C-alpha cells in the first residue's frame, strides 16, 4: 500500500436478494426456537447456554451478511470486534465481581 487509492464503493461480492431472504428465514427459525426453549420446562437447567448460543448465532448472521462484515475490509471488523471484546470483558468482569465472587446470591 503506497499510494492514495480512489474509493471503490462496491468491488466485493454481495449476497443477492434470495440469499438475504434465506438468512431471514434462518433468523426467524432461530427466534422461534428461542421462544420455544423458554417454554419447555425440561430445558430449564441448560436454558442459559442454549439461549446464548442461539442469540450469538443471530447476532453473527446479521453482522456477517446484512452488515457485510464477512465481505468487507478487515479494518471494519477490527473496529467492531475490538469494541465488542472490550464490552464483553467489562460485562464478564461485572458479573464475576458482583455475583460470582461476592457473597452468594442467586444469579
Amino acid at each position, binding site marked *: 500500500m503506497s499510494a492514495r487509492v480512489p474509493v471503490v464503493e462496491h468491488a466485493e461480492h454481495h449476497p443477492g436478494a434470495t440469499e*438475504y431472504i434465506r438468512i*431471514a428465514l434462518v433468523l426467524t427459525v432461530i427466534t422461534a426456537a428461542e421462544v420455544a426453549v423458554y417454554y419447555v420446562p425440561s430445558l430449564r437447567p441448560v436454558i442459559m447456554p442454549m439461549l446464548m448460543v442461539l442469540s450469538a448465532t*443471530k447476532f453473527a448472521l446479521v453482522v456477517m451478511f*446484512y452488515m457485510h462484515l464477512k465481505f468487507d475490509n478487515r479494518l471494519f471488523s477490527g473496529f*467492531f470486534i475490538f469494541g465488542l471484546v472490550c464490552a464483553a470483558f467489562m460485562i464478564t468482569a461485572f458479573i464475576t465481581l458482583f455475583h460470582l465472587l461476592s457473597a452468594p446470591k442467586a444469579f
Partner: protein
Amino acid sequence: MEHVAALPAQAHVGETSTGLNSRKVLMWAFLGSDCMLFGSLIGTYLVYRGNYPSGPKPSDVFDIPYTSVSAFALLMSSLAMVLALAAIQRGDIRRLKIWLLCVAGLGLVFIGGQVYEFTTFGSEGLNLTTATFGSSFFTLTGFHGTHVTFGIVWLLMLWMLAARGQMTQARSLDVEIAGLYWHFVDIVWIIIFTVVYLIPAI
C-alpha cells in the same frame, strides 16, 4: 516550477489512504464505540439482576409472546433494510422507496410496542424509581428505543430525498451507512431480548 504542475498527487475528494470511504470508517468506529455504551447499560442491568427487594420482579411484568412479536418486527426490518440497499445499488429507486418505508414502518411498530409496554409496566407498578430493576430496565431499553427513533428519522429523511428524486445509484453509500446503523440497533435488541427477557432471573 514546471515540475510542480506535473506532480500527480493532489488530494482529490474521494481519494483516501485506504481506499475506504471516510464516512463509512466513521460509522464503523462509532459502532465499536456504541458497543461500550450498550455494554455499560447491559452491565449495569446485570449487576442488579436478581436483586428485587421491593416492587415487581421481571417475571411479574414480562409478557414474552408480546415482546417476541415486536422483536420479530425489528428483525424483519433488517431484511427490508438490506433489500432497500440492494435496490439502490441496482438503481431501482422505486423499490428503494418501498423498502425504506417498510423499514421505518417496522421500526415504528417496534417503538409503538415499546411505548405500550412501558405504559403497561407503569400501571403494574414498575417505573424508573421503583428499585434498581426499574431504573436499569427503563434506562437500557429507553436508550435502545432512542436509538431506534433516531434511525427512523434518518430513514424517513432518506425516503424524502428519494421521493424528491435526489437519490441515485451513485448515492447508495448513504443508504449503506444508515443501514449499518440500523442493523446495529437490531443486533443490540437481539442481545437485550435474550439477556433481559428470555434468560429467567431466579
